[in-house]
């Protein structure tokens, strides 16, 4: 067994320090060590997208990265989307458009959409559909998710 290494990360604006064996997946580190249970794990091979987080502002699969690789990084997880106890417009739109059922894919969906609307505040429906296609949802059939993304974009444009 390899020795544990120090891992220092900033998650949702909070500094964390922990120790992890090199092989510990970042997804497991977030969940087991930092007890940030919002990030979900659905496949551990990069396909389902439930574990998607923002890593220095970019969406990545936390199951395909080791915690030791994250040292020094700024991470955002689903827990960091709402601010000051208020839902983010994306979260509001997901609620209003019934864009989640079991909610298991939702953390990955929200992070994906959060990044997408930052890059593309005025998307077409097709672009929105393509953006969420990197996260598998078994419940919703995606239609209401795409509707929520379009509604969220509108909300955010009005707020901006």
């Amino acid at each position, binding site marked *: *067994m390899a020795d544990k290494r120090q891992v220092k990360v900033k998650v949702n604006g909070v500094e964390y320090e922990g120790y992890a*064996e090199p*092989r*510990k997946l970042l997804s497991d580190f977030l*969940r*087991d060590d930092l*007890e*940030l*249970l*919002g*990030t*979900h*794990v*659905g*496949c*551990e*091979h990069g*396909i*389902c997208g*439930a574990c998607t987080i923002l890593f220095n502002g970019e969406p990545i699969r936390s199951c395909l990265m080791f915690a030791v690789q994250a040292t020094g990084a700024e991470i955002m*997880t*689903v*827990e960091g*989307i*709402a601010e000051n106890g208020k*839902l983010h417009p994306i*979260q509001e739109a*997901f*609620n*209003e*458009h*019934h864009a*989640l*059922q*079991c*909610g*298991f*894919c*939702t*953390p990955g969906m*929200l992070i994906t959409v959060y990044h997408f609307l930052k890059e593309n505040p005025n998307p077409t429906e097709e672009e929105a*559909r*393509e953006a*969420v*296609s*990197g996260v*598998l*949802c*078994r*419940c*919703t*059939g*995606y*239609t*209401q*998710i*795409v509707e929520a993304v379009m509604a969220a974009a509108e909300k955010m444009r009005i707020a901006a």
Partner: protein
Amino acid sequence: MSGEKKKWVGSSYKRKEDMRLLTGRGTFMDDILLPNMKHAAILRSPYAHAKILDVDISEALKAPGVIGVVTGEDVKKASKPYPCGVTIPTKYYTCAVDKVRFVGEPVAVVVADNRYLAEDALDLIEVDYDPLEAVVDIEKAIEPDAPVLHENIGSNIYNHRFFKYGTDWDTLCQEADEVVKWKFNFPKYAGSPIETYGVIASYSSFENSYVVYNNYQGPFVNHALTAMALGIPENKMRWIIPTDIGGGFGTKTGIYPYCALMSIVAKKTGVTVKWIEDRREHLLASATCTDRVTYIEAAVRKDGKILGLKDKAMDTTGGYIRPPEPGCAYRSTGNHTGAYDIRNLDREVYIVATNKGLTAPLRGYGCQELYFSTERITDMAAAKLGIDPAEIRFKNFVQPEQMPYTTATGGYYDVGNYPAAFQKCLDIVEYDKMREYQKKARAEGRLVGIGLASVVDPSVTNIAYVAIGKTIEERKNERDKSGSGEAAIVKVDPLGGITVICSTNPQGQGHETVISQIIADEFGVHPDEVVVDSVLDSSDRLYSITTGSFSSRFASSGTTAIVRASRQCIEKAKKIAAHLMKIKVEDVVMEEGKFFAKDKPEKAIKLRHIAGAAHWNQYDLPEGIDAGLFGTSLWTMPTSRPPDGKDRVNSSNTYGFVAEAIVVEVDQETGEITFLKWASVHDAGTILNPQIVRGQVLGSIVQAIGGSMYEEQAYDEHGQCLTASFADYLCPTAMEMPKVDVDHFESPSVLTALGSKGAGEGSSMSVPPAIGNAIADALAPLGVVVDELPLSPSKIWHMIDEAKAKTN
């Protein structure tokens, strides 16, 4: 009762459960952290069929962090095979004992400080296998020289039955103008929820009792059967199901064997054991629907009237048969003839052993397999007779004036207007216009097809269906089984707050929201004031054999239990109000959460004051009334009777209707399919929350697209699984989901309190045949017959290629 306009029920009230799920604060199985919890990993068979000669765990026991190892021998000592509703002696243990019968079957369990170390130790277990020839093909499995999986059965037949309803088949064929026959293959696919199975088990040697956390979706019959397998009283095994389950779709009815296995592991190792199934394990060894071979014949008259059906359906439940199988073949008994008025049926059923993964009810349980054959043969009959597929359906529908209608097989359809609902679907898809469009497209050499399906969507299964697996003679020696009960407790606390506890344990269907809407209407409060407790704990919940979230039972059975419990509670409140106001109970009126004398509405007492009286001043209550304010109901549908002496059974209790109309274009060069237009019309009775129902329909559609075109638990001829990762088991993404017009035709059930029927499964059953029919229609000019799923571009291309080769 049903059909009246409500304030909250029927509105798209926004989901309450979303608040936690959107902010990362849900509580799913893997979010449960208990003190001193250790982690299990399961060693699984790499062989489809092999004898286990030896399992050497000595090195594994020495590995870092390892607490203990459990093998099949331990499991055999600690448990009995699961009981199952067939007459052959089955031997399903939760871990392979002397033989493995499918790739992925558990062989041993390691418990260690963490999952990484547990998996390390798995690598150190030495298993000496003696590989045997495997059989994966259903029809090959019942050939006399096939390798036999279970020596104690002597063949690969778990179950074999014949049924006859109505006129004798040969006589019928003489009356018929045509007998259309074909063979269909239905594939093995799964719900694949994004959250996998999970179990945390602990054992107390002092009480000889178990606490098992798990994300099971019901039915709770398996709680009882697990206790039986472990040889303990049911109340010594407490199951706790967390607030949130990350999707179920029937697949999570298959968790119970792991509850037994981890209980055994916890007992042997003496620690609290957590096992979270990984995706590979899930794809290899959780549960799928049965794959089925169907030989079907339809006897039809020239005018399109279907006189009768004859079918031989052969399902495989894989390496073992376990509860609730053989339900795959029998769950749809009552609705076997679907939406059509067909009085004659000749049926043969085989349930077969093959070296493949095991099965469980999958959203639509048994009906997609059934309707794929019946709806396809309906289209083939229409083609043979030269009539339109829509017309043959109109010709055969059970008519609204025939309702309530009892099917030849014993199903009791209480309401419905199939022709009208079907017409609505045709109107939405602009059927005639699309036929014109198709004509033009064909003239240009394009392959455009229109696929229809019209099916009855059975909900709230009556457990009596399982008994059909045994013959009438065999059943005579057994006690009857029946029922569809669902439970609710509605309680008003001392400050007037209402809490509801339900036996359904949802996996995303929004029960908290819908229950709050119902309670808001019943009590005249706001939905936000209602609290719904959705942890399910067997030690303090009302539950029964039939409870849980499966067969779309919440919307009809669950809601009725809630309404009944509410009304019981309100009746009691009225009695207390009468006592406080010193008037007769009959004179008490409740409106908007207030109780008053008929003639004195200005002198109303609020619910909270009645609750206050019931809790804070228990001495001063009417004669014979208990303290507190609550109502309970464990309500079963009155139509849930045992099978009769002619193998007829009302296998479900509410029967909805679904019409699907799908327009596709097939790229004849690549075999790729594009959806051009899609209408899906559902009769789910009263709609409780339109937005939630739309979500259910769209969700069932995407899963059915998966099963029809992308998803399959596929095997090679040696029983090696070809789809053990999400790179090969292909769940549709957002890009594969077309635009679908979802609409409704409401005929409220007269059997349920709110008129609702089920809505969660319909399109799971209707989409596979509709897609099959659409592609068949598109390829018809080439003379291609579509008789299997899933239809990958490669397969479609081969079908086109072969057809072209034939004509050349």
